[in-house]
């Protein structure tokens, strides 16, 4: 099943299929290791619901939901 990263439940994991979006934000996501094939685990939401924290390539990354919305994921079974 495909869905964007911002819609993930806590503890849910998956594999990046593609990254939509444009320019700087997209490049930044790539540079931080969110490239197709990367495994991502949704860790938590900030106390106010946004941003979110994920584990990718063995480290913790935080990004906003709006930014996570451009990451299309294949949900792990």
């Amino acid at each position: 099943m495909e869905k964007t990263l911002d819609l993930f439940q806590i503890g849910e994991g998956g594999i990046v299929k593609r990254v939509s979006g444009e320019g700087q934000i997209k490049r930044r996501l790539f540079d931080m290791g969110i490239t197709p094939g990367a495994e991502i685990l949704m860790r938590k939401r900030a106390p106010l619901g946004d941003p979110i924290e994920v584990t990718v390539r063995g480290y913790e990354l935080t990004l906003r939901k709006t930014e996570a919305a451009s990451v299309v994921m294949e949900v792990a079974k």
Partner: protein
Amino acid sequence: MKRFALAGNPNCGKTTLFNSLTGSTAHVGNWPGVTVDKKTGTYKKCPEPVQIIDLPGIYSLSPYTPEEVIARNYVLDEKPDCVINIVDATNLERNLYLTTQLMEIDVPMVIALNMMDAVEKSGDKIDEKELEKRLGVPVVKISALKEKGLKELMDKAYAESKSERKGITVLEESALGHLIGDVKIALKGQNVQNPLFHAVKLVESDSIETEMHKETVQMINEFKETFEDEVFGNDFEALVADARYKYISKNFAPTVQKKKKEKFSMTRSDKADKVMTHKIWGIPIFLLILFAIFHLTFSEDFLYLGAIFKLPSLEDLGLLTAEGEPINYGVRWLACIYDGAVFSPGVIINNIWNDMLVGELFGWLGGLVEGSSMSPWAIGLINNGIFEGIAAVLSFLPPILVLFLFFSILEDSGYMARIAFILDRMFRRFGLSGRAFMPMIMGFGCSVPAMINTRTLADEKERTATVRVIPFFSCGAKLPILTAVAGAIVAYFHVGNADAITFLMYLLGIVAAIVSVLLMRSTTLKGETPPFIMELPAYHAPQFKNLMAHLWDKTKHFVKKAFTIILASTIVIWFLTHFSFAWKFLEDEEINQSILAGISQLVQPLFTPLGFGSQLGQYGWVFVVAAVAGLIAKENVIATFATLAACLVAVANLNIGGLDIAAEEGIDAVQAMILATGITVPALISFIAFNMTTIPCFAAVGTAKAELQDKKRFNGTLIFWISASYVISAAIYTIGSWWWTAFIWAALIAAVVCLIIWHNKNAQKKALKKV
């Protein structure tokens, strides 16, 4: 001298390594044209001394942030003799991503595999010989923290620096390998240096490169038209990033043997984070930490022991003389630590420093000058101008240092990044990111370091907005003004409560800051909310050595700035208050004839809407003098109160009854000023508000100028400070004096807000039409 550059990700131990290698030779400056720290130092244990340059911490060599551009240009243009790429061995994949880009540059290179102690502790193993073979670049295992392997690293780097190295790329096998090869040959034909690096960046459509090699872009565009990847289409930037990571996972990651099989196990850091950023407890914990920091730095009743146990004051204990002075030397020391309550560590350090060390020193020096045969004006200049200026700078040091120490601990432990994580949602409403919080809160200590701290903000507009509102977070030097005027209001008019007034004024500053940011971000500093894609480094105990190095850096920065500007401003004030236009030296009480008084009388009508202008009559200029002196340096306002009160007594034959106008707190001095001018309570409140929100001091102005770079932005900042304080104070005075004017203000504000919304909507429509 040979030059080695340190390059690596943020949080990879680069600073620790730099400190270990260079020790006391470290020097912090700025990269030309931008406000990013440039650290250099000397390493002495190679056959010849080596200059070490600490490049900014970066994740990539993309053209988007100033840090990335600096690092990239330094390696390309300055051609260091060797690049030492520090790689966090606990997070090899992401760290090697930068490595694969650095490798493409024709420069000798060594990889320092850092944090090997942590890797070994977790039971993992890294085959560095195999990694070295696969990378084609020497790899040395080190632990920057335990200073292990540093000698080997530097010897290796020194050996490498003697030969040349041609760039290599991991992209050869990728779909774009051929194109990169062709572009490289073309660039080589044009005699371009570092052809491989430029070729790769050109293929990525990197904005800096396409500007530089316009002819060659054509070649890539032709290729692009014929190219179609099933995942990326012809987005080469994405393709290249993906190819790098793919290569790393396939070829480099296998050199790591993980002990544990489960992928997402809980480390100690994870467990700590579960509590610190907890859904419910995260925010209370954050507030508690913040409160603790301010309590430890500023509280005069540590842990509220005094209030709880009703501890006796020194006076109750009979340890003070009738004049309220300690009876002996021992009690003077005791008074630094205790008086009816135990002081917090920050206050104790402050007291000892100011009362015992700096106070004593300048008391003694002042006595020497006083006793000399110099002319009165020279004695005045040295004692009241220069010495007071130096003492003022020094007196600021303890609270700032203590505050810095706590903030460095937060930074070093990894909690600072979590603060940004917790607060981002709230700050985004105002068009800022969570990172803007730290500089703002530092403003409560001193605006100068707070403004320097805005460098952590990547977006220029966000930075400008933050620098502008920092003074609204009332700094240490403004507090005495608040307590003096608030105290005088309570003592003279018998209304209100001094603590409540002070607290409300702090609150006013915060509200003013929020409103101003909102206004600026929807008018002059409009722009997208900057992205927030940030690493959350693992928690670890702060390192004493790192903390001290950090503290030393910041202190040097502050002292340099403060010594020049604050010292100069006290001398300026002394001069303006002690000389008349006719070039005559004046005694303290003759301040009414001074240049400052002359200027103040001239501009006094301007302050009428604020309540301390023309309506105060003959002696009304005293408040203007204090306010104008405050523009130069806020700590001078209190001193001005005392001289102004003395002057009023001498000139106006003021009967001040039992008031002690020379008292340190300035409350009685302000009462004398109230007596002479008949100023009202709303006007006094407006006076405090003006001081809180206007141009903070010359030192902050100088810092803002250096940090903002752009001249227009700087001028805008000055205009903003002046107009904000004017409007806020005028509103307070008029509403306080005539309650119904609140409706006029409300209508005005509503009109302005409507105008902005209407204007923005129109601009949006226009933009849409264009598309």
